[in-house]
């Protein structure tokens, strides 16, 4: 187990190295550069050249990459060209919002998806089954940003049940510790701030949950149906075990194996969806910031953010693999 983790982490190093080279070359080949974003169309060639020189962009790309790697090894990602602040600071300020949003979405998706998928499988061919299958098929076909707009229009703007934008009501003064607003509220015992932050998460969380929910319902249903037909379930029934024990110990546990894998695979898509949802709800996460950084050619921000996200993504998948070996003894991690 321990060796498995170490080996996976070691494997991460060459992958990150390769990713950084690809990203670096690719980003620096983007037409235009930060000078265009800073000066607009007006700047004279001299001013442009001065800015490029100032940022060290006039040097050969290899030298630039060397400098970047040197800083990387000291875990220094440099400063944003646009905001002049440390990339790490920017990340720590914005990423918690995205994580909160993604976590809300995946919790909603799991909390509704697994029971619904299970019930659909048990009531196969009945109304509930048909409704959830149809719902999950339609669910993956609705563009996330459209759903976000619809939810916002109905529940925020018409019914005024939920706030329509942002992460926190500006009138609430909250102490910031981790920038996870809900967590901050709980840690500082500012209950109203925590509740308000949660309130702001409901609509974007629901919109973002739509696709994972649809997928989890479908996978759970298929998986439960398969397990229900397995011989060991028949054995459990033959033992005369109570229905509850058969269901929990024998059916659900085995049915969760493919669901766990799927949830791991959903995290990547969740980040993409978060970018769209954040835009609709003016929710300050990394989504809008990355989009801006691309248009401004803010190289340090892009390099830094994408590298961090890639590392996190790999770590999440490592966790998923580990949890998989915990539920299924046949999977031995080596």
């Amino acid at each position: 187990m321990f060796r498995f983790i170490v080996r996976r982490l070691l494997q991460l190093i060459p992958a990150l190295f390769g990713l950084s080279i690809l990203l670096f070359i690719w980003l620096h080949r983007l037409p235009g550069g930060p000078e265009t974003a800073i000066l607009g169309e007006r700047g004279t060639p001299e001013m442009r050249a001065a800015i490029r020189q100032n940022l060290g962009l006039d040097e050969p790309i290899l030298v630039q990459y060397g400098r970047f790697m040197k800083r990387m090894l000291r875990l220094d990602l440099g400063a944003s060209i646009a905001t002049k602040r440390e990339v790490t600071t920017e990340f720590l300020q914005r990423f918690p919002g995205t994580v909160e949003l993604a976590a809300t979405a995946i919790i909603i998706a799991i909390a509704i998806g697994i029971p619904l998928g299970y019930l659909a499988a048990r009531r196969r061919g009945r109304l509930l089954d048909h409704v959830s299958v149809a719902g999950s098929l339609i669910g993956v076909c609705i563009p996330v940003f459209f759903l976000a707009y619809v939810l916002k229009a109905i529940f925020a703007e018409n019914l005024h049940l939920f706030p329509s934008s942002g992460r926190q009501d500006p009138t609430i003064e909250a102490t910031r510790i981790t920038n996870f607003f809900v967590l901050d509220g709980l840690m500082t015992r500012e209950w109203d701030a925590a509740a308000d932050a949660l309130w702001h998460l409901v609509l974007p969380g629901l919109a973002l949950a739509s696709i994972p929910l649809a997928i989890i319902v479908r996978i759970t249903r298929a998986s439960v149906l398969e397990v229900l037909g397995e011989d060991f379930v028949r054995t459990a029934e033959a033992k005369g075990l109570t229905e509850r024990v058969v269901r929990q110990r024998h059916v659900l546990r085995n049915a969760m194996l493919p669901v766990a894998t799927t949830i791991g695979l959903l995290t990547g898509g969740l980040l993409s969806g978060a970018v769209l949802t954040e835009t609709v709800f003016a929710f300050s996460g990394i989504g809008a910031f990355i989009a801006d950084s691309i248009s401004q050619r803010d190289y340090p921000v892009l390099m830094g953010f994408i590298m961090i996200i890639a590392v996190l993504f790999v770590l999440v998948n490592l966790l998923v693999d580990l949890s998989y070996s915990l539920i299924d003894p046949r999977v031995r991690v080596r």
Partner: protein
Amino acid sequence: MALLDVEDLSVTFRQRGKRTVRAVDGVSFSVDAGEVVGLVGESGCGKSVTSLALMGLLPRQPGISVGGKADFDGTDLLRVDRRAMRDIRGRDVAMIFQDPLSSLNPVIPIGRQVTEVLTRHRGLSGDAARKEAADLLDRVGIPDPTRRLKEYPHQLSGGMRQRALIAIAVACQPRLLIADEPTTALDVTIQAQILELLKALVRDSGTALVMITHDLGVVAGMCDTVNVLYAGRVVETARRRPLFAEPRHPYTVGLLNSIPRLDAGRGDKLSPIPGSVRDVLPWADGCAFAPRCDRQVEACVGEPPQLVLTHTDRTYRCVNPVPAVGSAPAVAEPAVEAGPGPAAEAGPESGPVGPVAEVDPVAEEKQSSVPAPREEESA
């Protein structure tokens, strides 16, 4: 009074868009306490469905209907309500399945799978349950049982898994054990060990055993009474020795003749039954076996054959049966020695099926404890 008395059991599968299938079509047989009864037939003859119906394990779906009666010590297993059936299953009636790997839960340790049945029916928990589980594993011949308790099914060999399944089945000392092809998925040598184990368990505990198999070798080695099934009906019932010595139903003869024999000349061909189980006539239109039968006469078609009761302990369902030994040259006579077949050769007791000459049907009848054969009108 028999322990289990199955009367006119029928199971019908009705699926939308497909034709209705009567998998079990009026099966009747009985099992005495401590007796080993065989249900024999080709795949598709309804023997597994029969066992699932008795256990109440057929899927509860509209379209699957079970009829008839299965009197188990005063309780009709087919009518008892679901909760009561859960109490009976595993405690009074237990089952051993064909494929031990898929029949054990892959993600739960063996120990847990044994203890959960002890917890459910005997109220044992914690260390008491674990100790009893270790004893059980020991009794079914699993070495180092305390360590095995913590292992998962994939870490055990095929034979060990089947032993574990047997341990689960006998955990509550059931009065009736149903074994559905318990050795089919195993190597020949392991098959012999498992059969030996089952036999010992049955002998020691007085549990009645219904042995479901397609392997006449298994039947020859174990069963007291044999029921031959074809197309969802019992076509012949007899004590083991008379059945092998003097099969009366042409299908039984066919089964016996399909087995390769050691003493046959190299050039001799096997005489398998022509056609397959799919070539059946519905019982309502006559004898289901008629299309494949070499003794077919006109009377076979038109009306379902009645069950015929002979003066010996035997019933068969045929209008033109194979003549009994002595009255005419029997088709099956030479086949008897081959009865055990390849499987039983390695089996624990390939001897019991003696040559024909030794078998005295009358003597066999005297000592038999088979329930009185009943005359039965066909459904």
